[in-house]
């Protein structure tokens, strides 16, 4: 069964400011959606609404044709959300952090798999070091390692390129592209210029314009 996240008529107000109004969105397999807009235009708020974290908005969210309220658990099992704060415990090692996230999705996972993922993101040799001793970029990479470790079709990424070096950015772009090609979908915000990522759709907040790249 193919998945689809639909939003109909999303309207959100914050502090008497209307961030967006009557926003319609559709995200399905193989799609990459980039949310753009100046600082404070509501990108993070939109991502939080789309990942089911904020409920004080008007409009409806549907997952696979069902209202979000009813299928919340099923939706969460398919979602991987990375926010501004990476959600990584500084006192734990990278491996311990990843193990907890695997367990939260109900998998035992195994150590070899976690080590392989850490090697892939360039943290080989740092797996037993408390994350607090790693640099900001390395901490970010630990959070991003979850992308490869847990199978989730829908990725919602808020500024995933923050604090990552050039090489890491290229690798992450490849990772996003591979995910879309494999039939997953990505919703992301970034101020970074992305390399062409297959079919990239854009939404620009702050001026209520929605267009499709390449048209």
């Amino acid at each position, binding site marked *: 069964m193919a*998945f689809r996240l639909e939003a109909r008529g999303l309207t959100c107000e914050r502090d008497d400011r209307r961030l967006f109004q009557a926003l319609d969105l559709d995200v399905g397999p193989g799609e990459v959606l980039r949310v753009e807009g100046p600082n404070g235009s509501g990108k993070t708020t939109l991502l939080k609404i789309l990942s089911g*974290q904020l409920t004080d908005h008007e409009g409806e969210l549907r997952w696979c044709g069902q209202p979000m309220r009813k299928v919340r658990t099923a939706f969460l099992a398919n979602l991987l959300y990375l926010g501004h704060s990476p959600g990584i*415990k500084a006192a734990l090692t990278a491996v311990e952090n990843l193990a907890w996230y695997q367990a939260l*999705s109900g998998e*035992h996972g195994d150590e070899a798999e976690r080590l392989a993922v850490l090697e892939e993101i360039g943290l080989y040799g740092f797996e037993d070091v408390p994350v607090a001793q790693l640099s900001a970029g390395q901490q970010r990479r630990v959070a991003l390692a979850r992308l490869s470790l847990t199978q989730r079709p829908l990725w919602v990424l808020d500024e995933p390129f923050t604090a990552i070096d050039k090489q890491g950015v290229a690798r992450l772009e490849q990772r996003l592209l591979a995910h879309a090609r494999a039939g997953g979908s990505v919703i992301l915000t970034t101020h970074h210029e992305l390399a062409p990522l297959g079919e990239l759709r854009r939404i620009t907040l702050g001026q209520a314009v929605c267009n499709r790249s390449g048209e």
Partner: protein
Amino acid sequence: MQVIEPKAELGIAVRATIKRDMTLVLRRRSEVINPLVFFALVITLFPLGISPDPQMLAAIAPGLLWVAALLATQLSLDTLFRSDYDDGSLEQLLLSPQPLPALVLSKTLVHWLLTGLPLALMAPLLGLMLALPGQSYAVLAFSLALGSASLSLIGAIGAALTVGLSRGGVLLSLLVLPLYIPVLIFGAGAVQVVILGGNAAPYLAILGAQLCLALMLAPWAIAAALRISING
């Protein structure tokens, strides 16, 4: 890519959360030791401030020990969800496909294991200092172990409600302390009754009933409070 069905593997998630929180607290030992030191210091102040007369101290000891243990629990509550909130892992906890009440219950369990239980085990030692009669030590420790579990559960509701506030400490106390009163009455009462030569069983039974009630209701209240805090 296929839609993933949620895996009903709650046991794995709960075990991992308990293990993770234990590791975290044990790596920052001060979090375990601070409430114990606070407890000992407060109890030391009373003989100095009131009178070193053993008879007088013995009369007020059950209440003193219970109030001091209650405040020590209260002190440690603010950190229960705070660091998770700050580094974003609370957000991720709420986004996990597992039932949130079970996950917060395991976090609260760790709080009790590393705060309430050590306090209960240490209390007889401090009772000695207050000239508490010997026959009441077992009941003191047992009533504190039972009661502090209720305190952890009730306090966690307050901690969850105030986690989004930058200075939630005082508000947390104002919210939670009134709710501690029933536990305090029956906890201190149990010890008092033993000293007077009575039977503490009814008091302990009521403490147990309070714990059952807290176990049934608090996890849902904590989960709801966390959702409100994150939404704000």
